[in-house]
C-alpha cells in the first residue's frame, strides 16, 4: 500500500510531558512530488504534526505514543532529528529563525550539516538563483535582514540539505501580501523544478490551496476533512471558515452570527 507513498502517517497520537495530548489519531499520506497543505486554526495541532515527522518533538518533551510515521516505508517516529534529517526530511521552523549572528552565507552553510564534508558551492548558487535578493546581502548578519529576506533565507538554508521532503511551517507569517505571493511562487518553483515534495502548514488557506495538490483540514488535534485542493477550495465550510467567504459570497451583517453557525464536524 505504501510503495508509492513518500510519507505515511498512521493514526498517531502525540503527548507532551506525558500528560497533554495534542494529536488524537492523525493520519495522512504524501505522495512523491506533491504539495500537501495542512490547514487549521491556531492550536489545531498542525505544527505538532510537522514536529512528529521531523523528530523535533523530543527537545520539547513530546512523544508519539501511538501509531506510526513511515518515510519511504521505514518507521521514523520518535527517532532523533539527526537521523531523520539525514534520511532527507528538513523542517523549516515557524516564525523565521535564522542564526542572527551568522552572515547569510554562513547560515546557508549550516544547511549542509547533513552532508558534512561534501562540496556545497553549487548549492549556494542554486539558492541564490531561487532567491536573488539574498545574493547582494550574503555578507550581512542575518539578524539585520528584513522579514521577507529572513523567510527566503530559512527556506534556502533548508534547500542546502537536498531534502526529499520539505516541511514548511507558516512561511507567510507576518509578511506583506506581495512578499507572501513571491515566496509562494518560489515554493511552487522548488516543487516543480527540483521535484521536492512539500508539506505546507498555513493559516493563509487561500494561498496554500492555490499551490497545493492535496489538502487536509485539522481541528482540535484531529483531521476533519481532506481532499484535492480544488475540491477544498469549493467546499462551503472551508470557504466560510478558512477562506473568509460567506456561503453566498456576501451576506448582510444581520446574518453574521458566527457563534450560531458551528463548525459542523465538531
Amino acid at each position: 500500500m505504501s510503495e508509492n507513498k513518500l510519507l505515511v502517517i498512521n493514526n498517531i497520537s502525540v503527548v507532551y510531558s506525558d500528560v497533554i495530548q495534542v494529536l488524537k489519531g492523525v493520519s495522512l499520506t504524501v505522495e512523491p512530488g506533491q504539495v500537501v497543505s495542512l490547514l487549521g486554526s491556531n492550536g489545531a495541532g498542525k505544527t505538532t504534526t510537522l514536529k512528529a515527522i521531523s523528530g523535533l518533538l523530543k527537545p520539547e518533551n513530546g512523544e508519539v505514543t501511538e501509531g506510526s510515521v513511515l518515510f519511504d516505508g521505514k518507521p521514523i517516529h520518535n527517532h532523533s532529528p539527526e537521523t531523520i534529517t539525514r534520511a532527507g526530511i528538513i523542517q523549516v521552523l515557524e516564525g523565521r529563525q535564522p542564526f542572527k549572528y551568522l552572515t547569510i552565507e554562513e547560515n546557508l552553510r549550516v544547511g549542509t550539516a547533513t552532508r558534512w564534508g561534501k562540496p556545497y558551492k553549487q548549492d549556494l548558487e542554486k539558492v541564490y538563483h531561487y532567491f536573488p535578493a539574498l545574493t547582494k546581502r550574503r555578507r550581512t548578519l542575518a539578524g539585520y535582514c528584513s522579514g521577507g529576506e529572513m523567510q527566503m533565507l530559512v527556506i534556502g538554508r533548508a534547500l542546502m540539505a537536498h531534502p526529499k521532503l520539505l516541511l514548511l511551517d507558516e512561511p507567510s507569517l507576518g509578511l506583506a501580501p506581495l512578499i507572501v505571493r513571491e515566496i509562494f511562487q518560489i515554493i511552487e518553483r522548488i516543487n516543480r523544478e527540483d521535484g521536492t515534495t512539500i508539506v505546507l502548514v498555513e493559516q493563509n488557506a487561500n494561498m496554500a490551496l492555490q499551490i497545493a495538490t492535496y489538502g487536509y483540514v485539522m481541528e482540535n488535534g484531529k483531521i476533519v476533512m481532506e481532499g484535492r485542493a480544488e475540491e477544498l477550495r469549493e467546499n462551503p465550510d472551508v470557504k466560510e471558515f478558512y477562506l473568509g467567504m460567506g456561503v453566498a459570497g456576501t451576506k448582510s451583517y444581520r446574518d453574521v452570527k458566527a457563534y450560531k453557525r458551528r463548525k459542523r464536524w465538531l
Partner: protein
Amino acid sequence: MTKKNRFNSSERCKMDFFIQLLINGISIGFLYGLSAMGFVMIFKSSSVLNFAHGEVLAFGAFLFLALVTSAQLPVWLGFLVTLAGTFVLGFVIERIFLRPLIGEPLIQVIMLTVGLAAMFKGGMLLVWGGNLYTYPDFLPEGLGISWGIVQVPPVYVAAVIIGSLFLLMFGLFFKFSSQGIYMRSVADNQTAALSLGVHVRRVFALSWAIAALVAGISGIVLGIINGINVHELSSIGLKVFPVVILGGLDSIGGAIIGGLIIGLLETFTGGYLSPSLRDVVPYIALVFILLVKPYGLFGLVEIERV
C-alpha cells in the same frame, strides 16, 4: 654633566621597569585570555558556566609534569600528549557527566561543575599533594629577548607566541570551517540547528574538548611561569570570571581583550602599588567597566528587530 647623566639613567630605569611590566602583563594576559576562551566556548554553546575550568587547567599542567619528569618523554611529545589528553578529558567529562543532564534545569548542570571541581581538585591533591613543583628547564635561552636593560625571559615570549598562535587557529576554525560554523549555529539558535540536522550533542562534546585543551595549554605555560601547585593553578579558574565578564560572556575576542586588561592591571598594580593589591584591583576595575558597559566590553547586545 654627571648629574644630568644620573638623572637620565634613573628616568631610563623607570621606563625599563614600565616596559618590563607591560610585557609581563601582556603575556600573562594572553594566558588568561586563552583559558577564558575555553570558558566562553562552553558558555556559548550550552549556556553552562564551568566552575571546574581552573581544575582542568591545573590537570593539564600536572599531566605535562608527569609526562616530562616521570615518563621522561621529550618536551615536544609531552606537550602534544598533554594536548590530546586534555582534549579527551573534556570529551569524557561531557559524555559521562553532562550528557545525562541535557534538558535538565541549568542550575543543576552548573552545580554539577562545582562538584566536578571539588572532585578533580581532591584527586590531584591525592596524587601530587599540595606541594609546589617546577618543570625542568627546557625553553631555549635564545627565545628570551634582551633589549637594552629590558630582559624578557623565554617563558613570557613563549606565552605570547603560543597564545597568539592558538587564538589565530581557533579564530580561523570558527570563521571558516564547516564544523566551526555548525558550532556557532548551535550557540545562536539550538532548535534551528537541530532542525537542519546539526549534531548538537557532538557540538557540545567538541566545545568541552576544545575548552579543556586550551585550558591545558594555559595551565602548562602558567606552570612554567609560577610553578605548579594545585591550589594556585585552580584558583586561576576564578580569575577567569572577571576576564569573561569584562570581555562579555559570549565573545571569544572579548575574552582575549578582557584577559589582556586583567593581566596588565594585575602586573601594574603589583609593580607600582603593592603586590598584595594585585588580586583586588582587577575586580574594582570590573565594577567600573560594567557600570558603563553592562554587557561587557564586547558582549553581544541582543539583535532585536521589531
